[in-house]
């Protein structure tokens, strides 16, 4: 009986520690939700802080798009009906352009935006 109580106690403590740890980590992440549709991102201007992990969560409202930010070396396909997530830690300040890199039609060339990383 005593050992069972100890086991339950250990498991409970582990779960609590995990939840607290997750919440602390989540609190330290910068989560940005971005929608993509022909031929724009919303938002198209994103600001994040240097050194703090960033999660970009993309949703396509119509077709396949892309997200490519060469200056920060991050890219992903943005597929409709699917979660598209990119994680990175910005290690330099500045403004970095991004664009759609999956050809999506007549306004493709104008589908772009910027990520600004502040100190």
């Amino acid at each position, binding site marked *: 009986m005593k050992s069972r109580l100890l086991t339950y106690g250990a498991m409970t403590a582990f779960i609590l520690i995990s939840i607290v740890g997750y919440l602390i980590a989540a609190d330290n992440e910068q989560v940005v939700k971005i929608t993509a549709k022909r031929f724009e991102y919303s938002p198209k201007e994103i600001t994040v802080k240097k050194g703090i992990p960033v999660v970009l969560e993309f949703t396509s409202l119509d077709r396949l798009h*892309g997200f490519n930010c060469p*200056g920060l070396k991050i890219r992903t396909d943005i597929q409709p009906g699917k979660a598209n997530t990119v994680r990175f830690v910005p290690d330099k300040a500045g403004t970095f352009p991004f*664009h759609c*890199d999956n*050809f*999506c*039609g*007549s306004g*493709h060339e104008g589908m772009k935006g910027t990520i600004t990383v502040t100190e």
Partner: protein
Amino acid sequence: MKIDRRDFLRFAGFGCVVFASGLGGMGNLTNRAWAAEDDFFFVQLSDTHWGFTGPAVNPDSTGTLRKAVETVNSLKIQPDFIMFTGDLTHVTDDDKDRRTRLAGFRDIIKELKVKNIRFMPGEHDAGLDEGQAFKEFFGETHYAFDHKGIHFMALDNVSDPGSSIGQTQLEWLSADLKPRDKGSPIVVFTHRPLFDLYPDWDWYTRDGAKAIELLMPYSNVTVFYGHIHQEHHDNTGHIAHHSAKGLMFPLPTPGSVPVKNPIPWDANQPYKGLGFRSVEAKGKEARYAISEFNVKGEKL
């Protein structure tokens, strides 16, 4: 000044052209007798964007291609072949309109005297339907052919909307190269640059490095491409890459402005920045004399 083959021969000796070679330099070239039996030249036309409208950029959008056709037809000696390196048409989201534009382009270039014409798509032609409409009009999007000792290859880096050549085509490229002598002359045509010219403006090919890796063991490789609407010359190792002017609107030099937009029409210098090129090939020796011309056929 109208151009003819004599111009090529004359300019070849005076450095008025860009000389490209897999191995050799300009010194060797200028000391050689240029017109041997296996010499020939071809013309590269690119980015005609048939269907584009934008008076501020090109008020003669329906006449520029016709003028270029007339200019090429005016050559006293016609090129052995003509290569169109993509974006024959301007993008439309409508499948029917895409075919109408491809047909319109085809009807104009039918007037070319030279009937040995090769085509490849740009993303405007093929990026929305994986090249389906293009193939209906102009056949395969990647292929190879030989001409007077030179092996020519057209690589498709646009039918995949993500600008990848793709594993299937890379395997084809590898198999096609495999039996060739490492020193044999090879010319590659693409639409987009194979190398990272300026990724912020999408001027690259996602898996272009894989194609370059396959080509690298071959010592005489030259790449001619389009897409960036301007003349540009660069190297990846010993492989030379030459982009051509477009025939609808010029684009700014890579990274020169914050936003990549067509350069507005200059009424004082109509058709400025538009043109085409000729490439005189010293067969089997992988030496090329590149000459740039404006729409009127004046040498630049």
